[in-house]
């Protein structure tokens, strides 16, 4: 593994006040970086699941995993190897762009037009983060006005 490889870590935490600060403080306090972070409650439990995309050497990732584990409200930490990973993006285009081309492209990335108003359309795509990167670079020529990415979510196979 290269010295700064991208890694995805999932963390199961008790869904309580300030638990997210505990996680992000740990990253900033120890000088680890966060590429993206998503969090949502796990249905019918008192836990939430965080998916953190980070980067670092084997040793750094091992430390991150152990330090996360040391936090009292953390139940489990998974450092993923074999996983399914998806990310969503919302993109706003002027309505004057070529809508059929945009729509076709969205289709290729598990997406569609989700909202239309007088001057703009909003599309969504949901795919692997790398493919979302790719989509966003391809649609540059349609002059996107705003882009929102959700950050990655992941599940071990």
């Amino acid at each position: 593994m290269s010295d700064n490889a991208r890694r995805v870590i999932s963390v199961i935490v008790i869904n309580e006040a300030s638990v997210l600060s505990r996680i992000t403080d740990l990253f900033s306090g120890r000088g680890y970086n966060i590429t993206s972070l998503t969090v949502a409650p796990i249905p019918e439990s008192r836990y939430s699941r965080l998916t953190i995309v980070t980067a670092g050497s084997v040793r750094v990732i091992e430390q991150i995993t152990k330090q996360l584990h040391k936090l009292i409200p953390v139940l489990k930490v998974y450092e993923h190897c074999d996983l399914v990973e998806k990310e969503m993006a919302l993109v706003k285009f002027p309505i004057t762009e070529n809508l059929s081309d945009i729509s076709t492209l969205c289709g290729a990335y598990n997406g569609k037009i989700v909202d239309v108003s007088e001057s703009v359309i909003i599309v969504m795509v949901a795919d692997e983060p790398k493919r979302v990167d790719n989509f966003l670079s391809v649609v540059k020529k349609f002059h996107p006005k705003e882009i929102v990415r959700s950050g990655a979510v992941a599940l071990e196979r």
Partner: protein
Amino acid sequence: MQINGAQMVIEALIAEGVDTVFGYPGGAIMNVYDEIYKQDNFKHILTRHEQAAVHAAEGYSKASGKVGVAMITSGPGFTNAVTGLADAYMDSIPLVVISGQVPMSLIGTDAFQEIDAVGISRSCTKHNYLVTDAKDLSRVLKEAFFIARTGRPGPVHVDIPKDVTAQMGEFDYSIEVDLETYKPNTVGNPRQIRKAMEAIASSKRPLFYLGGGIINSNAAYEVRELVKTTGIPAVETFMARGTLSHDDELLISMLGMHGSYAANMAMSETDMVIALGARFDDRVTGKLSEFAKNATVIHVDIDPASISKLVNADFPIVGDIKNVVTEMLSLASQIDSEKYESWRETINNFDELHPLTFHEDSERLKPQWVIKRVGELLGDSANISTDVGQHQMWAAQFYPFSRPRQFISSGGLGTMGFGFPAAMGVKAASPQKTSINITGDGSILMNIQELMTAVEQKLPVINIILNNNYLGMVRQWQSLFYGKRHSQTDLSVQPDFTMLSQSFGGLGYRVTTKEEFDAALKDAVEKNIVALIEVMVERHENVMPMVPSGGSLFNMMLLEKKKEKK
């Protein structure tokens, strides 16, 4: 029965068997102080600064092995206590620190004496709580004590808004602590321990690297047994002083930046490091890539995150030192102590080549002599706290420690001002021993107001100030690495320490000779009142040996050979 939140705090402290609380009242914690007034189950010691309250709780905890308790108010009361929390966090000292907070309705409004206390303490505590309902208080306090003392110990901060301490509710402390997310592993993997012992048996130059975790785990006597049985020499970290007795033939000395030549050379030459509750701190290892370069590493620690953090462990063992060492002892017969005779010989030769010593001076007292002398006069009968700086290193190098929990000092954070309040806590925990604080002319002024506490509470701490009119350790670095530019370290302007102490009702001495020192110490011990003994020592003495910051452990600056006087 319904009681209010403040009464719940009192009930919880009683249930935990707390006998001493260090603290300072203020607006947001007044409900609790009102209940303290009404009870006599535990003693409250009023320090004169919140930082001192937490340091005193640390000293109390380190000397007794129990959880230390401090209580403070919101805002500045809390921020003053943060240094103590950080200090306890770095040195893994179990504390529960309870702070008042503005009422729930005012949180977030920039109310008087409001600060986001849990936001601040998050990064310097093992865990923290903001209690938003009195019904949570019994559970939170029980968890706080449990988390503080189990696993790798540490400080836990509980922030309680004023209206919560007034709120009525049911109190039930019989609940079991059940933390699904916190289950420290205390028993080392037996197969891994067996493999480690086999590896030790086949090594040629093994070395015990003893750390502060041994003291926390109350495992010093098991470790003494293991060292004796195996005949393997040992070095101690600063935090582990007292694990082995000073007269143990297998104890080399302290290692690290100011470790002895033999200890650092042994660590550089060993082929098998057996780390017990030590964390490979930068002040111990020097340049990491050169540290114990040819050694296999066995690392036993209760904190998995400490293992392979800095030095890769070939045999990682997660568990409580006491359990693991007991297990190791049961397998120790396979280790042939005689096999290491020549290795022990090598180490003895290192020690004879450059022993840990200093040069006496007929003109001025040497600081090292003072430490040794205290050791000769008080030895085992004293507990030794220190502040931070040169005097701290000399104390660690030259005091003849004979038991665990005898040496109380701020290792990880290096907090000047720690020593005096800590020594008060030590005295409160261990009244039958003389409580000495070895300090410097810089450090002592950082919590000098505690003279008042010590006088009022009859905590006869003897502060021995090694006065060199310098911020000595910084001066030493400036002399060695900054072209002798002594920037802001000359402390020539000083109070009259004798009068200072006397003005609080304590004893004061200023000594310049050996005879005066002996007389002053004897007098202070007899009179049993807090004392400042100001010892005028050689100004330019350096702590040696010294591994320059970032240098390899085996590249030490050494004590210069004594010049022959004609």
